[in-house]
């Protein structure tokens, strides 16, 4: 079994050198095409072994999927450590630093702990649905990760309907949360599942509406097409990303807030807040199933951040004109790191919102403002993208926003409180 693989590897290496000699931009080992390397290697190996067409297609697709899953599982492990360290520094303490230098082996320790915990299944629960729910939560996140363009020539699956596929995969998460809550057979998970579903359904609307304004101006539902519509630079050095337009700024901020709520992260983590409802729909899960919930949530965070970057931050486009020599996937992962740091920062800074505040915020503030971005995007397109466009669009967006927030503040404002601290 190893000898054919070795032969394939040697042939692939020689073929890549041959390719590098004749066409520099088709080289396997070019830094731009590095994420594609496993997939290309598998393709070359299978073709060298004279496999039938369908087997080459399946093998290439499996290699692409395997690369995405491997990269993001490693990123998930690293993120669980980075999140704890960052939160700790925000809270003026040091994070985990015992397991390995700077706590770098902490994810390994966590993994071992999760795997060796006893798997408790309550007797009043339905064991099949109880087992199915964590699996059903991880699957849509991985599916959604497959349509995001990570680099100039690296979309794992380039669908012409990529954005619609992303949102369709997201709706499976809601059903899985309900199954998790109901199959546990006790009150806390059921309540947590009801709250989680109402939160996810309410925040799905601003998410999709703000994505619709992007689709309107790009003219395509394909995510790689949306990234390419954000190429180019205004005035020579300002990138033409959508977040640097008035409607795009508002839509991008709404997208990030709604993405926060969709991933059940603080300040919207009421469904899983420990001090409120034990662990919500995940209460009756232990061991590896809990690790699967955890993984599904973080992979969903990667997916939503990746989509936000694709829609508003220009995907893999470099921020300045002269930086085109840096491989495009480095820009994507850099932006991903920035957005994830922003999410961690928000988590460490804001308190948790109550369920009624959450719903009111979604239905009375986010949805009207996101509905406004649709005509504003059209006005931006047709009034020329210059100063007049900026003036008009900012006015149309700011006035309702100020009215809504002022109305909120007046309704939510309490009397002057007197705080007395213990001395």
């Amino acid at each position, binding site marked *: 079994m190893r000898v054919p693989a070795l032969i394939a590897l040697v042939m692939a290496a020689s073929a890549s050198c041959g390719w590098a000699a004749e066409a520099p931009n088709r080289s396997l080992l070019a830094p731009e095409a590095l994420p594609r390397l496993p997939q290309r290697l598998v393709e070359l190996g299978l073709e060298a072994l004279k496999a039938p067409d369908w087997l080459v297609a399946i093998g290439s697709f499996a290699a692409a999927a395997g690369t995405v899953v491997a990269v993001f599982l490693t990123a998930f492990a690293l993120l669980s450590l980075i999140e704890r360290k960052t939160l700790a520094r925000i809270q003026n303490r040091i994070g985990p630093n015992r397991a390995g230098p700077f706590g770098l082996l902490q994810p390994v320790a966590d993994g071992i702990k999760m795997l060796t915990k006893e798997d408790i299944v309550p007797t009043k629960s339905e064991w099949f649905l109880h087992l199915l729910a964590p699996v059903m939560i991880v699957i849509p996140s991985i599916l959604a990760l497959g349509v995001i363009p990570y680099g100039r020539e690296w979309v794992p699956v380039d669908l012409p309907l990529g954005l619609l596929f992303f949102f369709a995969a997201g*709706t*499976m998460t809601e*059903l899985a949360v*309900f199954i998790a809550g109901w199959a546990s057979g006790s009150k806390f998970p059921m309540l947590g599942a*009801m709250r989680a579903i109402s939160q996810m359904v309410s925040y799905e609307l601003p998410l999709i509406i703000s994505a619709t304004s992007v689709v309107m101006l790009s003219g395509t539902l394909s995510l790689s097409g949306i990234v390419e519509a954000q190429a180019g630079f205004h005035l020579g050095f300002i990138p033409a990303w959508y977040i640097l337009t008035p409607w795009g700024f508002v839509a991008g901020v709404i997208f990030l807030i709604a993405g926060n709520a969709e991933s059940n992260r603080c300040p919207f983590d009421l469904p899983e807040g420990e001090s409120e409802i034990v662990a919500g729909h995940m209460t009756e899960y232990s061991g590896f199933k809990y690790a699967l919930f955890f993984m599904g949530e973080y992979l969903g965070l990667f997916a939503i951040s990746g989509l936000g970057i694709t829609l508003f931050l220009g995907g893999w486009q470099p921020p300045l004109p002269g930086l085109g020599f840096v491989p495009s996937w480095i820009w994507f992962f850099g932006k991903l790191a920035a957005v994830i740091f922003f999410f961690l920062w928000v988590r460490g800074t804001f308190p948790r919102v109550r369920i009624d505040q959450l719903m009111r915020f979604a239905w009375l503030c986010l949805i009207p403002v996101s509905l406004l971005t649709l005509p504003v995007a059209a006005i931006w397109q047709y009034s020329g993208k210059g100063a007049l466009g900026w003036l008009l669009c900012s006015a149309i967006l700011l006035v309702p926003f100020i009215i809504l927030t002022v109305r909120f503040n007046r309704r939510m404002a309490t009397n002057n409180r007197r705080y007395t601290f213990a001395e």
Partner: protein
Amino acid sequence: MIPLLILSPLILLAALGAVWKARPVHAALLLALTLALVAVFYLTVGAEFVGLVQFMVYVGGVAILIVFALLITRPGDEAAEVARRPRSLALGLSCVAPVLGLLLYAFSKGLPVDVAGETNPPLPVKAVGMELFGNAVPAVLAVAVLLTAVLIGAALFARDPGKKPEPPIG
């Protein structure tokens, strides 16, 4: 053809479960499975846009609504349902058998000669958009008005009856 031969029995089995299972939440989840399989069918046949819309609206909307309503109303009378089974099965079958016969008879008469090609016809989203907002604009506007009315109506119906009812006139 092979995907259709695999999908059709699965769809029928899931629908049978949705119709026959005594516990309501199981029936609702099997309905979600049926709707998801129908979405997969649409994707197989080449209507990708329709398949993804089916997934988003039916599985992600209608199924969640049904499941939520079951959570709120908490029905729990499966024993009574099972006890009625033989009678309801006989009555139900006697009512639906003529309908099934009629449908199959209608489908067996005068089908178009198989003119379909081997490959799926394209369904580009741009064409769907141009049709929707070109020829079918009145229908889109009517559906928009309907959906707005439904949103307002359902919100009005489902809100908490906090106020006391007014005293009768006279």
